[in-house]
């Protein structure tokens, strides 16, 4: 009888431990907001080196580079 009681105690203790483990579980489903981007944020292209946050310099560089595709500008008409 004593053995049975001890076994029952062990089983109920183990069950309580298993059930309590669920409380520490992290939610595996993301918080879903309809129609909103759910991924990681992305930084603007001018934030990192070599522009270091200088948006005007980046825009100027891109604009000049875009004009390299224009032969009329590059080699003259």
């Amino acid at each position, binding site marked *: 009888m004593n053995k049975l009681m001890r076994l029952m105690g062990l089983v109920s203790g183990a069950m309580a431990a298993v059930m309590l483990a669920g409380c520490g579980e992290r939610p595996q489903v993301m918080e*879903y907001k*309809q129609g909103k981007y759910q991924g*990681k944020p*992305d930084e*603007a*292209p001018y934030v990192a080196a070599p522009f270091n946050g200088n948006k005007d310099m980046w825009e100027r560089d891109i*604009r000049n*580079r*875009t004009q390299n*595709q224009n032969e009329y500008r590059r080699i003259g008409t």
Partner: protein
Amino acid sequence: MARMKFLCDAERCIECNGCVTACKQENDIPWGVNRRRVVTINDGVPGERSISVACMHCSDAPCMAVCPVDCFYRSEEGVVLHDKDLCIGCGYCFYACPFGAPQFPQAGAFGVRGKMDKCTFCAGGPEPDNSEAEYKKYGRNRLAEGKLPACAEMCSTKALLGGDGDTIAEIYRQRATTRGKGSEVWGWSTAYGRPEAPKAPAAAPGGKS
């Protein structure tokens, strides 16, 4: 700065596939995935035309609208990008896209689809700029280096233009007015025309209006 756009001049494209190769090389694209393709209409018939097609970075992107996990976003520069960590490879975006831009690597022998891959306008993705993680998942981030997409910059005839929408529209407008044709394309006045610009040359008889 306006929105980043591609523009392919069908009068100039010679179907060399240089843009496709440049894209593959720059972004280390695996076999079976083509972020950019050259499409030829009336192939072999006199007057055939080719255009280079990839993601057009739509202002109202259908891929974005149908994605069940909302992994798409539009950057400040108007580039449509996605988070591969979130993508479930369902393929809805492929059905929604009118340009066939979303690509799916075949991950196994039984048609198992990998995560979606598409043209990023050489702008990487949602990882630290120019990091190894960004390169592995999305390819090179040329925009963060102050460069334009490799396909457009490598184009030998400059048929494929890439960059700020207003600037490339201006380049195309100058080109079409100088050579005297090209302005008969549909939507000319919407995309390239502007009231103060010199009048575009008249369309050839029998041409599109």
